[in-house]
């Protein structure tokens, strides 16, 4: 189990090291290029800032009103029956529909449980291996006018469900809950 956490610590330095070394060897003006790329990243975030604010307000309200609690409580018996942590339910449902709404729920879980709790860690792992299936599939198929998508949705949903289950089990295993 330790090696998985070791990979966690190793990953960022390793990626940075390889990129910089490779860039230098190829004669890239690394800092100039870095600044240019960083500028683009900056703009991307500024661009999505209104979206994040809007969604955080909506989800903050949803929680403060007690509605989120209500949804979780209604679904909790089903979740418990299969060993699924109830607080993760709204996120698991939202994840494949809207990525920004899912992010809002993640912030909420971090705020409530803390990022280093079992819930916080499971959520972090889960967000790395699931996707906004419905949005992605419709955009991709619409651009080429495909009407019959056959088994794509089934396969994608299976992968996502596997990801959710794997996230929770792996978090339990690695961090020893």
């Amino acid at each position, binding site marked *: 189990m330790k090696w998985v956490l070791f*990979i*966690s*610590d190793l*990953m960022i330095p390793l*990626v940075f090291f390889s*990129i910089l070394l*490779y*860039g230098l060897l*190829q004669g*890239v003006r690394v800092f100039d290029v870095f600044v*240019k*790329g*960083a*500028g*683009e*990243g900056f703009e991307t975030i*500024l661009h999505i*800032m209104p979206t994040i604010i*809007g969604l*955080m307000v*909506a989800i903050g*309200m*949803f929680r*403060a*009103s007690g*509605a989120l609690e209500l949804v979780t409580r209604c679904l909790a018996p089903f979740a418990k029956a299969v060993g699924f942590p109830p607080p993760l339910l709204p996120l698991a449902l939202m994840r494949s*529909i*809207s990525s920004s*709404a899912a*992010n809002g729920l*993640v912030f909420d879980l*971090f705020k409530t449980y803390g990022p280093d709790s079992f819930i916080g*860690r499971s959520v972090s*792992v889960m*967000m*790395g*291996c*699931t*996707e*906004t299936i419905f949005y*992605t599939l419709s*955009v*991709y*198929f619409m651009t*080429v006018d*495909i*009407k*019959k*998508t056959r088994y*794509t949705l089934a*396969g*994608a949903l*299976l*992968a*996502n469900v*596997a*990801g959710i289950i794997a*996230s929770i089990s792996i978090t339990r295993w*690695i*961090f020893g809950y």
Partner: protein
Amino acid sequence: MLNALWASLILISIVIATITGRLDALTQATIQSAKEGVILCFTLLGTMSLWMGMMKIAEDGGLIRGLCNRMGPILHFLFPDVPDHHPAQKHIATNLIANVLGLGWAATPAGLKAMEKLQELNKNKDTASRAMCMFLIVNVSSVQLLPVNIIAFRDQYGSANPAEIIGPAILATIISTLVGVIAGKILERVYYY
């Protein structure tokens, strides 16, 4: 989709808060959440700028192109219907690599291009081909090397070690992709027509 979702979240919240008598908490949460949104974006500004800057170096140095060229055998296994050196291969490889590196902005254009090229190979123009189904299944279950956003979020909310989830996340994402690929391979036999 998001319009209806966003509005219903707020409308339902107000109705329920009225019933449960939590209107004061609701008002407070509204103002507080807006402020938190701003603070969060400032954290993200740092991480995303750093990551995008690094990726730009990888792109300019040809590292990303090099990785794409090495994907031949994987592409051949996943998409047996796409001939070698067909332009679809290049776009699929770019899309998958960009996804692995967490470059959403680079992944989408390449992915849409890949779909166009796959459509040229497709015999039945309104029905998804085997290659398209597999491409999208792999795409949405994409293996992600560094969940950069999540690391930034964790940092923002005071994690003692924001990056500790990278290893577990890589494991989980490999599992979800494997399940996706296996499901795709089985389903394409079941749905044979």
